């Protein structure tokens, strides 16, 4: 009984926050609503028993998206206001269209078979081969390894894309993280206390990912956040994008992943196949590099294109 109250309350709150995000008059309240919305989403994912997803949403929705959008909202507010939105009739037409889309999706939700077709038994039956204990990690890194590899390539492409937005004269220089103008005592202390604990937690979440909720992405995202808080407190500068180490760090994950995948032809008879017996060792090896690349790529995505001339 009380569980239904909780679920309905969560959903009502989620919809309210989404509504504010879309309908608020000004951009800043919309962004803050969206940050709270991301936090609430990870609660909903816990209620759906998808703890791995909840962890990802907590790191991305609660942390990185918030920093990215708040910094962007405040940088864009100095520009002149934009043109008007569409006129009332068009607005209504769009509302009707959106309502129809919602209706169609809702009908699909109600018509789909319950329980739905599932791959859970197959995931469990074959998990012994991978040596893993967490079926979600097994899907990500073994059964559907191709998706995960492409996802890591997307991250690299996004970093390249963000960097290439730079003005010509700044190419090769350093981005400015959304950092403090001056150091402040409280923030400095915070950025000194948080990383030791955060790095421990990040490595733990990466490590237990083989058997429990967690994994390379969630652990890497937390490590990335620790690097970012150091930059946000102006205790460390963002690296110039021409630095070799940052470029290697960003591409290491996908390169190692592809390399191991190609080796799979020789050792296990197929692309991205892992040799039997030592599959878990190979998986952990790949995941270490993926974690490193994620920890390097996410702060670079938030920091944006370089805005300082390279030091020659």
């Amino acid at each position, binding site marked *: 009984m009380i569980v239904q109250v909780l679920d309905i309350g969560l959903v009502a709150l989620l919809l309210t926050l989404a509504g504010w995000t879309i309908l608020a008059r000004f951009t800043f309240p919309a962004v803050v609503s969206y940050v709270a919305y991301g936090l609430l989403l990870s609660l909903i994912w816990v209620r759906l028993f998808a703890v791995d997803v909840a962890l990802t949403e907590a790191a991305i929705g609660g942390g990185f998206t918030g920093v990215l959008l708040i910094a962007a909202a405040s940088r864009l507010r100095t520009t002149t206001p934009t043109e008007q939105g569409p006129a009332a009739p068009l607005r209504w037409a769009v509302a009707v269209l959106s309502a129809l889309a919602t209706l169609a999706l809702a009908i699909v939700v109600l018509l789909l078979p319950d329980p739905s077709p599932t791959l859970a038994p197959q995931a469990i039956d074959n998990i012994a081969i991978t040596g893993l204990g967490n079926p979600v990690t097994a899907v990500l890194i073994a059964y559907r390894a191709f998706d995960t590899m492409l996802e890591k390539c997307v991250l690299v492409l996004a970093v390249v894309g963000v960097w290439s937005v730079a003005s010509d004269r700044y190419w090769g220089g350093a981005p400015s993280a959304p950092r403090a103008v001056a150091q402040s005592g*409280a*923030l400095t202390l*915070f950025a000194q206390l*948080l990383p030791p604990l955060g790095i421990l937690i990040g490595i733990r979440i990466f490590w237990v990912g083989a058997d429990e909720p967690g994994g390379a992405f969630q652990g890497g995202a937390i490590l990335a956040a620790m690097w970012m808080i150091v930059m946000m407190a102006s205790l460390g500068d963002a690296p110039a994008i021409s630095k070799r180490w940052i470029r290697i760090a960003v591409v290491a994950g996908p390169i190692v992943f592809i390399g191991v995948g190609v080796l799979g032809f020789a050792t296990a008879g197929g692309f991205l196949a892992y040799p039997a017996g030592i599959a878990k060792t190979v998986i952990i090896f790949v995941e270490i590099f993926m974690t490193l690349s994620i920890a390097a790529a996410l702060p670079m995505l938030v920091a944006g294109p370089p805005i300082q001339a390279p030091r020659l």
Partner: protein
Amino acid sequence: MTLVLNLFSIGAICAGLVFFVAGTVGLLRFPDPLSRLHALTKADNIGLGLVVLGLLPFANGVLGGLKLMVVWVLVQLSGATVGQLIAQSMRRNGPNA
């Protein structure tokens, strides 16, 4: 023994709830941003601390209990830092920037 522990938990969690109520009331009713800041940075830290205290008896072993404590320490640290930063920022730039 279980009954005593349950009563302890219920007591601690209920006390925590009171502080969350206080935080919200303060945030809504206090007249200016600085006093609102004062209300909420106190309330949410103690509220969460009491909830964690109440949940400790049900914790999943020593590691589970340790994690609960870490959560509280982290929120405590975040709350204290954010309180300082927002207050400094309001003094320097006004509440609206």
